């Protein structure tokens, strides 16, 4: 466009050249010059006008560009949530195939454990599928519901709680039904476990996992080292019991967790927890002195101590190719109360028992992990009172060793193979093979440490 000025001049000259050739006197030359000047001025004026218009157009285009950009930045300012204002919905689908050398009359020799424990039944099992709904309630509360869909077509409320988000001094209050903060693994949902099943010590003392109806208060210390203190007070729904129908609670717990980093590659957490719970009619499967399968029922008080640690390593904190996780927990349970043997004889019972596990999971390739876990229970001291005649006790210490290999093509899917030798039952050591899938769809979950 800017080149138009000289071009216009050239065009003007070309038209005028023949006239110049024929000019033979000054007057003619003068008039021609004047004419030429006139034409030149005309063109220049028109070109200037054109240039002004061009500039104007350019500046308009520029502003329009800026406006468009601002508008699009504005557009991307819209809050991005998985479902606009609807809560985040996530679904875990899980299933197992189990091949075992023993039947499913599961119990743990020398332990009055309680709850639905033990490995999956033989054959194909729909594992525990889980439906989760979570969202901020308002600027002060957050709420979450997890429904467990079990393979017997039952739906149970795994967690349903509200939690504060705006309390001062790093206090968080939670109310409703939730997994207790005791230990390390207790608050982890089944789909985040590194093995198909929970450690034996959790099965023996906590009925797999302790979730209660109650309140929880946690406080985080204002230190660089992670220090979290928590206290819980609840109904006491341990190991499939109903909890106490009374004006005060049936369970109280306190816990402390400490954690930090060692360089960029290592992180750790350790904790100490105490749970006091008063179960009523806690039913457990057992085998009596005559070798019959029986159901015992316990009512009394249990005190459980848990010590836990977990250590994670990944080169430079980048676990995409390789990582290592070492984890262990020690549980001690003392309890006293009355034990009813197979719905007949009831008498005083007390026990002081221990259990622990140690496990290591190694990611050896992207997507591939392998893990080894060793479980050990110590039958300790058991006093069955007059039931000693019915329930044989000895010094047998149940144990189990498990190996797993899993493949996770993405962070949303996992397929696992697990082999285990389960010596929970003195009379029936069980060789187990599990194939499990765990898939997550819907809202992108964030995994706790």
């Amino acid at each position: 466009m800017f080149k138009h000025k000289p071009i216009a001049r050239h065009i003007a000259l070309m038209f005028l050249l023949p006239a110049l050739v024929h000019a033979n006197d000054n007057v003619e030359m003068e008039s021609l010059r004047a004419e030429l000047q006139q034409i030149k001025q005309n063109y220049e004026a028109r070109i200037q006008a054109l240039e002004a218009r061009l500039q104007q157009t350019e500046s308009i285009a520029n502003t329009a560009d800026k406006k468009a950009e601002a508008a699009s930045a504005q557009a991307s300012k819209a809050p991005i949530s998985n479902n606009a204002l609807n809560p985040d919905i996530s679904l875990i689908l899980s299933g197992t195939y189990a091949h075992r050398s023993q039947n499913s009359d599961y119990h743990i020799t020398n332990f009055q454990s309680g709850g639905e424990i033990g490995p999956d039944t033989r054959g194909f099992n729909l594992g525990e599928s889980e439906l989760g709904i979570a969202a901020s309630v308002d600027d002060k509360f957050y709420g979450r519901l997890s429904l467990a869909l079990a393979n017997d077509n039952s739906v149970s409320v795994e967690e349903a709680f509200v939690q504060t988000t705006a309390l001062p001094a790093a206090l968080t209050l939670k109310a409703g039904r939730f997994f207790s903060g005791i230990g390390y693994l207790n608050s982890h949902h089944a789909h985040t476990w590194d093995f198909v099943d929970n450690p034996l010590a959790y099965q023996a003392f906590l009925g797999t996992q302790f979730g209660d109806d109650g309140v929880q208060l946690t406080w985080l210390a204002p230190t660089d080292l992670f220090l979290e203190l928590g206290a819980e007070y609840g109904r006491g729904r341990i190991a499939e019991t109903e909890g106490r129908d009374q004006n005060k609670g049936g369970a109280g717990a306190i816990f402390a967790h400490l954690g930090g980093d060692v360089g960029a590659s290592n992180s750790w957490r350790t904790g100490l927890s105490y749970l006091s719970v008063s179960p009523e009619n806690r039913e457990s499967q057992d085998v009596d002195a005559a070798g019959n399968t029986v159901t015992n029922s316990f009512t009394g008080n249990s005190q459980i101590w848990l010590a836990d640690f977990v250590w994670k390593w990944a080169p430079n904190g980048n676990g995409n190719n390789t990582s290592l996780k070492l984890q262990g927990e020690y549980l001690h349970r003392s309890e006293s109360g009355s034990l009813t043997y197979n719905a007949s004889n009831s008498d005083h019972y007390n026990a002081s028992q221990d259990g622990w596990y140690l496990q290591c999971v190694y990611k050896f390739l992207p997507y591939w992990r392998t893990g080894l876990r060793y479980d050990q229970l110590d039958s300790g001291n058991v006093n069955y009172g007059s039931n000693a005649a019915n329930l044989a006790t000895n010094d047998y210490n149940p144990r189990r060793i498990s190996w797993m290999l899993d493949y996770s093509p993405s962070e949303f899917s996992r397929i696992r193979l697990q082999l285990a030798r389960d010596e929970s039952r003195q009379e029936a050591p069980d060789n187990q093979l599990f194939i499990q899938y765990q898939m997550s769809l819907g809202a992108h979950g964030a995994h706790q440490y």
Partner: protein
Amino acid sequence: MKNIIKLLGLLFCLSNISVAQATLNVFACEPEWGALVQELGGDKVSVFVATNALQDVHHIEAKPSLVAKLRKADLLVCTGSELEIGWLPVLIRQAGNPNIQSGKVGNFEATHYVRMLDIPTRLDRADGDVHAGGNPHIQTDPRNIAKVSDALAQRLVEIDSANAAFYQDRHEDFMQRWQSAIKRWETQAAPLKGINIVVQHKGFPYLENWLGLNEVAALEPKPGVDPTSTHLAEVLNQLKKQPAKMVIRAAYNSEKPSQWLAENAKIQAVELPYSVGGTPQAKDLFSLFDDTIRRLLEANK
């Protein structure tokens, strides 16, 4: 039970002890935002950077140390657009810090202030790691850094109004140096315009948009899915018809796939710092782009 009540009492006593704060505590999710806050805040801010440039920020452990740091933060500066979705929400819920909850003034997401690219037209996890809000790797275009700086300076003023003039001055000073640096980089990078490149992860749309690079293939078959040998062979085949000058990857990516392609297609493999600290040369925001341009130019020779 008595013990529990005693403990509750103790908790409340402890929580009343206020911790004196001389500086503004900033928790930055990624090193580039940590560096930017440092540029704007100088000695008025104390910056903690949650991740380093050799980590994949899509996948970070929600470590206890991060919870402890977030508890004390007055301001959280993250990328957003679901980049940190796998770990940040759980940290925020555990930290018990009302200041940095989503929607609060102490929660700053950089992607809200730039024009997002690669916004998916359909949301399906079968397409890999898709981000509904658009590609979150905005830090590879310095013009985005400038826009985020505008918004971040405003946010600092809002949170710490006592030092408003301080932040505004530093922001002005930074922007002057930054704009002239952008001109310099653009002049230096002029020869790169229009060249064909291959990327390992689809993490460079903003860099491509800025410098006029032409992405012809990605080594990851789907975003977030590691390169497979079949897909690498396909890319190699594609390059025979549509040759590329180089294959680029971020410092945190595994080098194997791009090395393989570089050897087989006889092109250059370029490791880019991607964020501050990704290479020894990328020490701050300025040297991050100095080094990025230098590495690209070297491979283009």
